[in-house]
């Protein structure tokens, strides 16, 4: 006997459990797989936070990829609560034992004033520009949208920052902040490929912005034309998703580390000396921080900057690109970062060496005790670099007679 739409709907309602938007909103995050079964054009107008999108016409083909466990809770929704009921019936037929449909759908969710997200949609031009990313399943449109919505902060537009900035901009990272107070010097051009001969004397942030926007006009370049110091570090790093440390002084590296740990922002660290480089990723509280690795800075004669010791131009190039690689993984949430590992590069031998890093249980910045002390409003005092290592303020030693500015 033929069935009408009303018959089918009645049967679906009798078979499938329905939940209200308020009940869905009250669920602890991650306790159920939320699937939006509307069409792509509807999804692009906004969707529930944390939901995956599989349009109803692909539900049979794609649901196992999103919800591999047939006994785990799955909640489907559409615009008004009808398509999701029918899609839920399909899942029940496929053996899903814990499927529900959200009554009233996205309209009821919005009507109740509940929070929703609007995905970044790629323009036709962006689909072409980023097509090689879109082809990689680990990036895809969702990953590209994530990059476009991401904010990366570069400390220094120099040897490390130059290649990192170019590749992050090319990759479509939406906002690139650059902290640099220096001007382009002709001696920078041997490695700082953001800048050009005709820009000698120009502010590095201005030169960087021009180069980046010539490569990718979509990139929003935020210039922080100031030296990173304890007084401004919290203001500058606020709101960034990841920070690339490419500075040339220990003072800045410690100031940045302490503030980034407190703010919970990952820092991709790199440093170079002649033919050698060091690289790691500091993810606050998951791995060690810079103070766990180097509790105190060395005297200047043991750690001269590039302007004193020299550096083979490609070394910061290679390390800067590895920083960009780490940053992209952090932003996309894919792969394994270098958290807990220090990568050494020796250009003369073309050799990479990996060392294991550990969190210092007594670290004054990232230990459990330090975190609790900060939460209680009484942070553990950390000796300033200058106090702890007075040699940084002297005028002796290989690098001691050069100001931090000149060492960049």
């Amino acid at each position: 006997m033929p069935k009408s739409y009303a018959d089918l709907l009645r049967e679906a309602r009798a078979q499938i459990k329905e939940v209200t938007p308020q009940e869905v909103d009250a669920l602890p995050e991650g306790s159920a797989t939320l699937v939006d079964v509307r069409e792509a054009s509807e999804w692009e107008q906004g969707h529930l936070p944390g939901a995956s999108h599989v349009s109803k016409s692909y539900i049979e083909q794609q649901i196992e990829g999103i919800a591999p466990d047939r006994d785990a809770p799955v909640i489907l929704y559409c615009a008004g609560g009808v398509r999701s009921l029918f899609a839920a019936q399909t899942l029940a037929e496929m053996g899903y034992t814990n499927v529900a449909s959200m009554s009233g759908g996205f309209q009821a969710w919005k009507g109740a004033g509940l929070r929703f997200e609007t995905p970044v949609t790629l323009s036709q031009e962006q689909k072409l520009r980023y097509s090689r990313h879109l082809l990689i399943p680990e990036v895809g449109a969702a990953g590209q949208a994530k990059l476009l919505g991401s904010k990366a902060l570069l400390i220094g537009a120099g040897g490390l920052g130059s290649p990192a900035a170019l590749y992050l901009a090319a990759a479509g990272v939406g906002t690139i902040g650059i902290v640099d107070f220096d001007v382009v010097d002709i001696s920078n051009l041997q490695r700082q490929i953001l800048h050009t001969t005709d820009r000698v004397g120009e502010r590095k942030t201005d030169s960087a912005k021009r180069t980046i926007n010539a490569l990718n006009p979509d990139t929003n370049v935020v210039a922080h034309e100031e030296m990173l110091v304890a007084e401004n570090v919290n203001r500058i790093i606020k709101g960034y998703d990841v920070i690339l440390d490419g500075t040339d002084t220990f003072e800045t590296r410690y100031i940045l580390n302490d503030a980034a740990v407190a703010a919970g922002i990952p820092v991709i660290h790199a440093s170079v000396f002649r033919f050698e480089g060091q690289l790691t990723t500091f993810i606050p509280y998951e791995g060690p921080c810079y103070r766990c690795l180097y509790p105190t800075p060395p005297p200047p004669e043991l750690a001269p900057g590039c302007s004193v010791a020299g550096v083979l131009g490609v070394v910061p190039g290679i390390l800067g690109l590895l920083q960009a690689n780490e940053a992209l993984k952090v932003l996309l949430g894919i792969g394994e970062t270098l958290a807990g590992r220090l990568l050494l590069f020796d250009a003369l031998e073309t050799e990479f060496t990996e060392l294991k890093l550990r969190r210092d249980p007594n670290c004054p910045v990232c230990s459990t005790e330090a975190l609790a002390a900060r939460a209680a409003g009484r942070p553990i005092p950390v000796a300033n670099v200058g106090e702890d290592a007075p040699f940084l303020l002297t005028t002796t030693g290989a690098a001691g007679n050069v100001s931090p500015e000149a060492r960049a």
Partner: protein
Amino acid sequence: MSTVFIPGVLRSNVGGAKSLELDGDSIRGVVEALVAKHPALGSQLLTADGDLNRFVNVYVNGQDVRYLAGLDTPVAPADEVRLLPAMAGG
């Protein structure tokens, strides 16, 4: 004999060698052998009290000796010891 890798910044103190073969059954023994051969390294690696300077990390087979037994960490003949000061350059 264990192999001690010398970072670029310290090589001028050891005649430019990238690595040295040194005797010693602990980090203390290896560092003492190194400083005996190249006294200029003494003040760079050790404090006045004979402890490792806090700004020099020492690794045995990729593991930081601070989380092993410090200067008393045993070193076997085929082990790789690596000295690693922080770098400033960017």
